[in-house]
């Protein structure tokens, strides 16, 4: 089963994302912020990381940088969730090592569509 790390400080967003992904056969690890994500993931590997940007304690970009520093996450697709697709955000996401971005709001279909592009069956 493909595993996805979903990081968002909003419980409703987390539930929606997890429910969607689990219903489509993914294993989901939920985390409430960057620090929680690092704690939860421990020394395991995931197939994809989906992270919100603005979170307390550790934001999404810091999380991405910290993940990219580890060899096992060098090639893992990481998508940043953002509320605006401004150039500024894109540059920041790219510089941190993100694979791509996805604009909020999105619906379950869009989420699966985008994930399908980076995690082909």
């Amino acid at each position: 089963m493909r595993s996805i790390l979903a990081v968002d400080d909003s419980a409703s967003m987390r539930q929606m994302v997890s429910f969607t992904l689990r219903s489509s056969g993914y294993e989901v690890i939920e985390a409430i912020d960057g620090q929680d994500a690092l704690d939860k993931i421990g020394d395991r590997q995931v197939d994809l990381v989906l992270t919100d940007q603005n979170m307390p304690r550790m934001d999404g970009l810091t999380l991405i940088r910290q993940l990219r520093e580890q060899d096992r996450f060098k090639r893992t697709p990481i998508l940043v969730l953002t509320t605006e697709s401004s150039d500024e955000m894109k540059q920041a996401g790219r510089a941190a090592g993100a694979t791509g971005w996805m604009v909020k709001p999105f619906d379950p279909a869009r989420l699966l569509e985008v994930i399908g592009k980076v995690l082909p069956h």
Partner: protein
Amino acid sequence: MSETHGQSGSADFDLSQFHGVFFEEAGENLANMESLLLALDETSADDESLNAIFRCAHSIKGGAATFGFQDVADLTHVMETLLDKLRRHELAVTTGMIDTLLESGDVLGHLLARHQGGAGEPIDCTELVGRIGALAHGSAAAAPLTAPPAAQAAPAVPAAPVTVPACGPIAGTRVLDIAIGPMDEPSLADHLADLFTEIPGLGTIEATDGGRAGPDRIRRFRVLTQASDADLLDLFSFHVAREQVRIVDGSADAGTAAAPAVASQAPAAAAPVSDSASYGFFDDGPGAPGPADQAPPVAVPAVSAASTKAPAAASRSAKNAERGSSPASNLEQSTIRVPIEKVDQLINLVGELVITQAMLAQTGRNLDPVIHQAMATGLADLERNTRMLQESVMAIRMIPMAVVFNRFPRMLRDLAGKLGKQVELQTIGEDTELDKGLIEKITDPLTHLVRNAADHGIEMPQDRIARGKPAGGTVTLAAAHQGGSVVIEVRDDGRGLNRDKLLRKAAERGLPVHEAMTDQEVYALIFEPGFSTANEVTDVSGRGVGMDVVKRNITSLGGSVEIDSTEGQGMRVSVRLPLTLAIMDGMSVGVARETYIVPLASVVESIHLSADDVKSVGGSARVVEVRNEYLPLVALDELFDVPREPGQAGSGIMIVIEAEGGRVALLVDELIGQHQVVVKNLEANYRKVPGVSGATILGDGRVALILDVSWLVRRARH
């Protein structure tokens, strides 16, 4: 917008299943935002607070947009725009901004309540959205970062003076191609031009479609501006639907000086491989799909297959990891939401269980402990477990006083502003827990007391200084457990009560007062209906109506209220409440063949009565002397018309009870014992009976009435 395809079939979820979580979360965010805003120091707003406030709005917006609450999303969007500029220090925080943001929080609360199915009038946020947009845009157009905070004092927008070079793009100016439509009425888009003439510094706009839409009913413009996409969208949305606006960077073919400006700002600009309005991938992003996977640091075959290989390998290693010790990936749910009815049902059942247990215990006492030893042990266990179960179940309904206290900082802020006073709120013991039902019912009386303290208690700053006090007054809210009760105090360091003035007012109103009354009794006069001590009526606390209602509400909860004051130094109102309405510590007393329950909290002492102590005063009224104080004597058998066997006389035991600052001696036949009783509402099951506040079922199955002590004291003393 890109087409939705792929696994959309399996993604056809009902998003409403997440609404409950969203509402709960949004409520928390709103409360959090309000307390952060209230605590914000305008002169030196710290980044952490500003970020946290931004995150609250941001989080609500994200959820609202996802779950389809457009009005909430729209309002939080403009709030977010303003807050973003504040946290980036592009704007300085002003009182006006805080007020507007607080107001927006209130409106959001209403909007959310309406979506949640609650009642309430529909709200038109257009004006508010415009106002927030004005706060954000107006000052933003003024030279950011360099403007001194003082210059931000007047946030009125279109009037904000801005200097923009008359022609030619300046550094930071972007060239944008804007498409709007398809529109039923394409000419509406011409109004956008008005925005650029009305708002100085916004930039310029020109139609690139010759002023009319083609067959696709889409209007096209070219805009030169320093404003962000989000700001433009906000402004455009006054005239056209936000969803119809497409903003594309037009600098590529612009051929103006603006293009280099953009490029120099972002030298590392990465052309997205796949970009739609809603998602995209970086061409050098690890794991990105697409033809050109050119990851620089790690040597990976530069073919598209790389992107699929890597995750596949990752997936394998994930499986290996799982075989070891994989942490549980499911969300650790630390709380659950349960309808209150379910909890109440549980409490009712436990109440019945307590009664059954009491009956069994009573029966068990008649058994020979030697023969029925196992039974006695079992009954003892049952009693202990029942008590623990009861406590645990009651604890479910217990919520911290903070729920009530948290509403007061905002209220006092608004109030102080209205009254021209400086009032600081101090809270103590907000962790103190109280039954949810009680919390709900005590909120209004407490609100009234706090409002009174600020309005009538705290003096105007100049008066306070004249009296040698600090200009700002303090209202203190303190909650603490005391035995089986919770005591909530509302204190202020204001002018306090004037005994003579109170007595004079009471006399004017024909109330029975005399000089020998204790201070407590004099202060309690303000609870009399229609009694007001304020010289002038204000629109904040009104005309003194209310204190009697406050008292009545508290008394109806089985609580009491007392006042203490030192003139010139302040006043303290203490509200004593039972921990819960469902269980009470009671003393059961026998009167002939009846049993009554006296709330233990109001029992002062019990004394054996001798005939010499009783004195008759005028008619049938009797008093009894207890420790040099004459107390009214109330015989319960006479009061409730309890039938007596001929020749049977009372044994002359009296219980001194205290309520509302007064004491009364109750004459009873015997003291049966102290125990917890499960309170049953008499009104709901029968009807209201004067002198009786409820009923309970005794261990032997009989019903005992619970005495309304306040009523008894009032009746005996007036």
